[in-house]
């Protein structure tokens, strides 16, 4: 399958991040088209395109927009979730760095569609460069009359606020993001009410991922048929895949949904040193891992689900056979323990406990009994925590155990660093050797 650069098409143009650069490639054409049509028509177009959320859950975008009650007399808000913090995910930040106007244009069109006059872009606090790029793009768009009162003479008003988070993973959870945006501690809210009914400041709110919104101008500009020629019936369109790990050319590869990992690996220059793929994760640490057997499964929402995992953020992490799965899982759980917000018991206490046990395994002090205990603990979190963070934390271990039980058995007596020389897995191992 060939790559289909759309959002990434002109990334080698160093001026793309400017208004002129973006416009030189047809930017803001879609906005003019959208503003001339009807908000409902825009929603219908996005619905017809079948675009699904690129943040991880894959919820149909047009459907989400249509949940916003109309003529309810309340202000509506669009909130862009740019808190990209999933381990292994690095796609929204590059999009904001290289092509921020695609996001801004998408925000304006989406706000028009859902009848919001105020939009917020909530960006992870640790990426000031991306924040500056987006803030600059918003300033330029405002100066050009693309944001503000009566945009392009349409009578539509919009203000965009670029908000910097403070670096909490939980704030990528949409309701925690809303609390954070309102100035509270970032902790998930009880649902219902759902954000579409009572979100930001208790008003109807749509929350979309950066990549989802960046798709909108292209769909409006080039049409549903063009969009649907890529991907599958249930996963139409293309995806910004960010491949990382033990590959020769880690990076961003925009390709139709349905491309296989094997193809992506080829684009990424194959495995480093020709070492075999041991395990890989299609979209961040929160989705169950797969192995070399699964390299030919199409990367779609439905095929990944059938394989027992999820497409997630569509940012594959590839690990070769130098890596201890015990160690990898331990690092992920340390991450979830550190990022657990503390609100609910299973996630707060479960991640604390599991991490402690895994660290014992890492040092060769695990036990067979604890192999089972860890499974129980994950079952005691999955589906019982307040939000998806807990579910995510309960994901790595069961999948790792399914494919690599022998490594956990070995870790009951031998430290993993003795079984797997950590230096061999370093990406900078060759440099270190020199």
């Amino acid at each position, binding site marked *: 399958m060939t790559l289909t650069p759309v959002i990434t098409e002109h990334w080698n143009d160093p001026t793309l991040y400017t208004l002129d650069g973006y416009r030189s490639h047809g930017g803001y054409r879609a906005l003019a088209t959208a503003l001339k049509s009807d908000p409902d028509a825009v929603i219908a177009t996005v619905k017809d395109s079948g675009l699904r959320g690129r943040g991880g859950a894959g919820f149909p975008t047009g459907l989400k927009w249509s949940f916003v009650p109309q003529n309810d007399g309340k202000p509506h808000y669009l909130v862009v979730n740019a808190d990209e913090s999933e381990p292994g995910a690095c796609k929204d930040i590059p999009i904001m760095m290289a092509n921020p106007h695609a996001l801004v244009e998408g925000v304006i069109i989406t706000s028009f569609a859902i009848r919001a006059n105020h939009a917020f872009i909530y960006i992870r606090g640790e990426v000031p460069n991306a924040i500056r790029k987006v803030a600059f793009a918003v300033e330029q768009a405002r100066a050009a009359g693309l944001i503000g009162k009566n945009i392009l003479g349409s009578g539509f008003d919009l203000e965009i606020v670029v908000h910097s988070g403070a670096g909490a993973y939980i704030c990528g959870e949409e309701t925690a993001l809303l609390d954070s945006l309102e100035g509270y501690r970032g902790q998930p809210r009880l649902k219902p009410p759902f954000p579409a009914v009572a979100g930001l400041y208790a008003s109807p709110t749509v929350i979309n991922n950066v990549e989802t919104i960046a798709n909108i101008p292209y769909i409006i500009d080039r049409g549903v048929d063009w969009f649907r020629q890529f991907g599958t019936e249930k996963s139409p369109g293309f995806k910004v895949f960010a491949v990382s790990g033990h590959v020769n050319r880690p990076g961003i590869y925009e390709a139709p949904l349905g491309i296989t990992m094997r193809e992506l690996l080829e684009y990424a220059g194959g495995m480093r040193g020709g070492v075999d793929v041991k395990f890989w994760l299609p979209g961040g640490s929160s989705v169950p891992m797969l192995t070399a057997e699964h390299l030919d499964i199409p990367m779609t929402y439905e095929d990944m689900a059938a394989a027992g995992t999820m497409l997630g953020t569509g940012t594959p992490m590839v690990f070769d056979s130098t890596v201890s799965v015990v160690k990898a899982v331990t690092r992920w759980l340390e991450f979830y323990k550190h990022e657990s917000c*503390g*609100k609910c018991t299973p996630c707060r206490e479960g991640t604390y406990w599991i991490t402690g046990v895994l660290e014992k395994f890492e040092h060769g002090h695990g036990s067979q009994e604890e192999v089972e205990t860890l499974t*129980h603990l994950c079952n005691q979190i999955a589906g*019982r925590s307040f939000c998806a963070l807990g579910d995510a934390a309960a994901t790595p271990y069961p999948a790792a155990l399914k494919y690599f039980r022998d490594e956990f058995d070995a870790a009951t007596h031998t430290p993993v660093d003795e079984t797997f020389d950590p230096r061999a897995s370093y990406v900078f191992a060759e440099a270190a050797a020199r």
Partner: protein
Amino acid sequence: MTITNEPGAQVAVPTDLVNVTIDGVEMQVPKGTLVIRAAELIGIEIPRFCDHPLLDPVAACRACLIEVDGMPKPQPACAQMVAEGMNVHTQHSSQVAAEAQAGVMEFLLVNHPLDCPVCDKGGECPLQNQAMSVGRPETRFTEEKRTFPKPINVSAQILLDRERCVSCARCTRFAEQIAGDPMIELLERGAQQQVGTADDEPFDSYFSGNTIQICPVGALTSADYRFRSRPFDLVSVPTTCEHCASGCSLRTDYRRGVVTRRLAWDDPEVNEEWNCDKGRFAFRYQSHGRINAPLVRENGELRVASWPEALATAAGIFEAARGNAGVLVGGRSTVEDAYAYSVMARAVLATDDIDFRVRAMSDEEAGFLAAVVAGSPVTTTYGSLENAPLVLLVDIEPEDESPIVFLRLRKAARGGTRVVTVASHLTTGSEKMNAELVACAPGDEVRALTELSADIRTALAVPGAVIMVGERAAAVPGAFTAVADLAKSTGAALVWVPRRAGERSALDAGALAGLLPGGRPLTDATAREEVARIWGISADRLPQPGRSGRALLENAARGDYAALLIGGVEVDDLRDADLLRAALESETSVVAISTHHNEVTAAADVVFPSGVVTEKSGTFLDWEGRPRPFGQVFHEALTTSDAGVISAIAEVMDATVEGSVTGIRGQIGALGPWRGARTTRTAVAAQPAAAGVRLATWRQLLDLGLMQSDEPHLAATARPTVARMSAATAAANGITEIATLTGPAGAISLPVEITEMVPDVVWVPMNSEGSRIYRDLGLGFGDVVQISAGGRP
């Protein structure tokens, strides 16, 4: 736990019922009911920690997970509402639910210390209990527990052992939702999540003690009770709070004859499950500085006497004073004690010179109380406040003066009730009730009420609207008249909210000149007949209307009474303290019945010890007029009630005054409510406001009140003593940081807090450290005060 309903109110039959099945039991419950509440109705107890029926659901602890048909994941029963046809499986019928609950229980204990043997909560701990019922017998957790340095003070009174906390957020939600004092909040995240305060901003809420009680573990303790006893060593008695007229139901716990703690008890109609910190923590006065035996004066000195001697001496004094005695009851007596004073005055001492008011008072007020309040049935209740479209507050600051009224008004305001306060400024308490201000300098109430906006007037005419007037109105001529006129013209309900617990009790017991028990006019022939029959005397032996208020005190000050019978009266609590002092110094014989030594007992000829609330049973009437009966905590007490003392004196005088609680309740019951004509109030005109800066003042909840003595931790949570005035008033008087207030009795200097308020008014607390207005200034509410810059606080 509380199920809120109002028996007094019309019971609405729910029409919006849904069918739901829980563990195979089919039932109908109102739409919107939470599954956990529905399950309780059929006796199924689902484990819970964060759930509390009076707090908004948060679904954080996950202890209550249940299975619902058609839902892929277990759901929290505390947040899941029932829906038509819903089929719920709790731990009793679902393996998934049982395992989910057990899993959460196991997780909760991961970081919880195993210090139950030294934890105050051990023995009454929801975590301990549920660990016993659904926990594992042995732990699988062998890693290191998270620890914190123990404990931290979130306030001078409240201590927090963070490692015990299970992050249920009941305390923080209480502070935010119920008290409106979000001074504690969850900080940090993950297992490090902890309750904390902002730097240098302690949890000085008037209601902070409730968080200890609703904490499902031993994370919150009070400095006073911590490590003092184990729950299973305590004996618990249901009681009523004696501190104010809110009428809280309490539980008093004691061990070996000493009260160790008090808890708010569940009374959905009154205090729900809350009380204030004064009611919870202030009880050491009960055992300190008490009068233990009768005293008689001999050669100018008081000495301990036997009961027979003291009774004979008092009887001798009263024999000589028949027809010329005065009786001061005090504002803290029970209905039964006040009734005994009332009978003693009329039937034995043949006098109607009797009053219970030990504060600012007026004849206008006495007339108002007799005509509008005394003996009136319970019609306006806490529930009425909650359902009122509008509540108008006149000369009352509920957060300080009737804290449970405040909590209910805040709840009402959150539910849409409009609260309007006629006051000099919007206090933090007013803000928490989302109150609107009708700005009014002290003394200008009459004008403010006559000039109320049409909008408020219209709202007052909506059925259910309530006017609440505080006792401070007695200091303002015409205020009670104006309030009563406003209620009459708009149709709004009118309630009088006194501060002390015994005021309404004394009023209804007839301890006010001109009034017989139940609001019966002394001048009414039928009333006299009814009362005389019960008292076993002939009606013509009842006296003619006598003196109350200032007239009584003036008569006493002149030494014109042969004898005075004085109950629990603190001289400095009187606006006219000098009059009583003069009486005490006069030749008049004084018989005092008191729990504690004070200025009155020091000057008395005979002193009888009286029991505090733990040593007797009785009844307080709260502001609603609702009887709040309480039982005796210490049956082996050496004291008796005031009624017991009075009855014994009367017996020596060959007269009969019923002294037992049951006997008095029987007499009051036999009298029944008064159905005849009430006295009519006389309209009093407003007086023109005096020129100058006027004093606004009231007693703060936590202050120098004698019943709060010996409570250092509680006192440390009191609000700082400041003088409040507007920026313009401060500027006009050249005041920046410190102001000096001067009155006839002296001067006080206080730090100034510039407050948005009416001009030419200065507010100071009435009885706080450095600001005892009657004593230090000789001034009261509404009086003109001299203010100047500077001074040393």
